[in-house]
Every structure is written in C-alpha cells, then in structure tokens.
C-alpha cells in the first residue's frame, strides 16, 4: 500500500519493450541501479513499470541495446500536475489566490463590538476608525494595547475597553460607564437658583429658606440652605430640598430664508450595486452619470458564510431623483412657518414650563425673516448644589 502510494507520488510509466537485446538492456538497467517492477513477457514483448524520473535513463539504455521501447500509460502526481502547467491562467490564478489568501490574513476583515448598548455605537466605530481600526486596516501596524487606551480616553461613556484580535476579526469588548447620581439623598446640599427670576411660591421640604416671596433672584443665588443651627448653637448639615416657582423671562429666535431652494423629489429613481472588499469599494456599473441629482440611501449586506464574516460587503445604492426648486415665500407665509416652528419649540422644550405671555419682535434683513419671541414664564428654578465637608 505504502509502496504504491509512494510510486504514485513519484509518478509511474508503464512501458512495452521489444527487440533484440532485452536481457542486455535489463542487465545494464540493473547495474545502473534503476528499479523495474511488474515485468511480464507476452507475445515476444516485455511489459513493465518504471518511475517517471528513471524513464529517460532507461530509454537511453534501451536505445543503446537496440531495443525498442514504447510508453503505454503514465500515471501519478507529476503527470497530473503537468497537465495544469500548460494552463498558465489556471496556475497563475491558483498561485494568486493562495497569495491573496495569505496576504489577506494581515488585514482586518470584521469588527465586532460587544456589550455596548450605548447611545452612540456609530460614534465608537468612528473613533475606532479614526485610530486606524477599520475594515481593511493592516494589522501588523496596529498596536492594540495602545489604541484601546487612546479610545478609552476619547470616548467618555465607556469605563473599560479591550481590543482582541481573533484571526482577522477584531473584537472590541466594552464596559459602559455607570454615572453615579450627582447628589445622593444622604449628602448635604443647598438649593440655588438656576435662572434669574422673581420668586412666586416656595415649597421647602427640607432646609432653611433664604429668600422671600416676590424677591428677585439671580442665577446661582442661594434659595434654601442645607446648614441648620439650633438654639443651642449646634450646626447641622441637611439635604435641602425645595420647589421654588419663579417668574422668568426666556427668549428664542427663529430665522427663515424667504428665498428657499427646496428639493422636489421625483417619482423616478435607480438602484446600483457595488461591492466593498477590504474597505475598497468597487462599483458594479459602468455608467456613472445620472439624469438628475439624487438622494442616496445605501443598504449594506455583509458576506456571512456559516457564521463567519468576510470582508466583503454588497452595497445597494438607492438613488431617489430630485429637482432643486427655488421658492420665494411672502412675509406672511414666512411668519406662519415660524409660528409653527415656535409651536413645536414650545411643545418640546418648554413643556414643563407654564407660559404666561409672550411678545414677538420681527426683523427682516437680507431676505431673512427673523422673529424673536420673549416669553414670560413660571418655572421651578431650584437646583441642588452639593455642600463640601469643609463648608
């Protein structure tokens, strides 16, 4: 079995031999140290086998001894490979494929971020990319230990990070920062004003009130003190808490260009495909021109075979055509649009504030309509400020 395998690896030639000096030829072959096997006589002809490497020498001996020799069959690895040597494209392609495969091991194929349900996963990816950790990056130039420290310093909402390389995949394990509450319920604190205003009502739950009703206060003024002293002169620090409603003034300005260039989306559009290999984008289309300007939305699909990710991404670019239309708005229309914007602002930003009245001031300059609204509001201006121990 092993002998047969070895012979197959070396390559074998089945030959046919006839003529005068068969015996002389065999004797010379013996003396040269050439091995033959399966020699059989049939119809005055000798059939046998020889290794491919020794066949040339054997042929020379046979020729010298006036014996004719013919190759009947050749088999084995060298002959099998020889077939492919004539197909240069195939050989070149295989060689290139192997080289590419070996070289590609030095590049990042995929990046996985674990345990990060954070608000801004894209931001983390962007920071990593800025530090050179991106698909297609050359791994030997990356110092992961140093980079993880740099990223940790830059991204504020993570407390710990580890960059592990598993083959061509970089796994980023992240621990989110748990921000403790600013002031714990047990800590002593004061209550100060967060805005300028006039105090309308005060509900002090703990602490000593430092202002009176209808008193004007500025931002940062002490409203309720967390330091209490009794008749015996003992000083006690408490967690001051209060709801201080004050009349405040807020202003907000919204500007609107009366000459607007607007996108008017058309019904038509087109889809184009591209492929991204190791971060290099290859468009799968020839005609780059588009009949109209377009808004592009991309759908990306990463190549995933049996749970293994590869650095190949199929991209579909959905182009939605639009036309730029110049619209000129009248002052009335502008005012209406701004009024709507103010409505949205009040709904979203001032929802916890009671608006008593407002006053608009309108200015139009260089085609820009600007309205500044001054609100008179009632709101809770109390904010807690921690007392330091020395205080």
């Amino acid at each position, binding site marked *: 079995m092993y002998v047969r395998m070895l012979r197959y690896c070396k390559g074998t030639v089945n030959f046919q031999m006839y003529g005068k000096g*068969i*015996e002389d030829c*065999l*004797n010379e*072959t*013996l*003396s040269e*140290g*050439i*091995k*033959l*096997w*399966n*020699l*059989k*006589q*049939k119809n005055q002809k*000798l059939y*046998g086998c020889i290794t491919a490497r020794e066949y040339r020498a054997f042929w020379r001996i046979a020729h010298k001894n006036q014996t004719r020799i013919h190759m009947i069959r050749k088999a084995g690895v060298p002959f099998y490979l020889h077939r492919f040597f004539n197909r240069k494209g195939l050989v070149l392609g295989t060689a290139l494929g192997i080289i590419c495969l070996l070289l590609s091991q030095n590049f990042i194929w995929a990046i996985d971020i674990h345990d990060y349900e954070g608000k801004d996963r894209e931001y983390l990816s962007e920071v990593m990319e800025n530090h050179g950790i991106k698909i297609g990056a050359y791994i030997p130039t990356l110092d992961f230990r140093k980079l993880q420290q740099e990223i940790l310093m830059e991204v504020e909402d993570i407390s710990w990070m580890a960059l592990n390389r598993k083959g061509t995949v970089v796994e980023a394990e992240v621990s989110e920062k748990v921000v403790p509450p600013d002031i714990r319920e047990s800590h002593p604190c004061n209550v100060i004003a967060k805005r300028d205003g006039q105090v309308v009502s005060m509900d002090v739950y703990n602490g000593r009130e430092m202002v009176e009703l209808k008193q004007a206060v500025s931002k940062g003024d002490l409203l309720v003190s967390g330091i209490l002293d009794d008749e015996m002169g003992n000083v006690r620090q408490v967690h001051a808490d209060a709801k201080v409603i004050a009349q405040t003034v807020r202003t907000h300005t919204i500007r609107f260009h009366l000459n607007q260039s607007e996108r008017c989306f058309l019904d038509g559009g087109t889809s184009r495909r591209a492929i991204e290999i190791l971060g290099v984008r290859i468009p799968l289309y020839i005609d780059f021109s588009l009949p109209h300007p377009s808004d592009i939305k991309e759908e990306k699909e990463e190549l995933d075979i049996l749970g293994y990710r590869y650095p190949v991404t199929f991209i579909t670019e959905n182009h939605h055509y639009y036309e730029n239309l110049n619209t000129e708005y009248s002052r009335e229309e502008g005012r209406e649009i701004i009024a709507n914007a103010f409505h949205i602002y009040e709904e979203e930003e001032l929802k916890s504030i009671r608006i008593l009245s407002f006053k608009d001031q309108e200015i139009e300059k260089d085609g820009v309509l600007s309205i500044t609204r001054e609100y008179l509001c009632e709101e809770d201006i109390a904010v807690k400020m921690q007392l330091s121990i020395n205080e």
Partner: protein
Amino acid sequence: MREKKLIVKPYTEFAIHSPRMILYRNQEAVIEGCKKILIYTDNMIRFQTKKQEICFYGSGLSLKSLNSENIIITGMIDKIEYFA
C-alpha cells in the same frame, strides 16, 4: 561432568557473498546477489550469480521486482536448475 561449550561460528565470506534464495511455495522466489539475467522468457528465467548460474522453469513467469539488491520471480515454478 564437563560442560559443553557453545561454539559460535563467525560469518564466513561464503555466507555474505553467496546468493541467497527464498522460495514461497512454488509461486514466488526472492533471489539476492544476482549479477546478470541471461535468458528471460515466459517459461524460463536464467541468471548469473557470482559463481554459478541458476535457471527457473515454469509457466507464466514474470519479474515482480528487478533492482540491484534482489529479484523477485513470480509465477508457477516447476523446476530450478543450477549450472556450475
């Protein structure tokens, strides 16, 4: 009583250089020390060793292996003859 001494005979030149022949029934023969093939047909293989010629007779005789160390003959061996 005298003990018998075990006498080990050293290898002689005869033992090293003389051809050695191993027969597996009458179907296979391994011959070492073959110098030359004199006649090779389907029914007879005659070859030269150092000091004598050996001839195998039979039917369907073939050389399973032929190299400088040994020769393996297969087939139905009917007769072996030695020629001085």
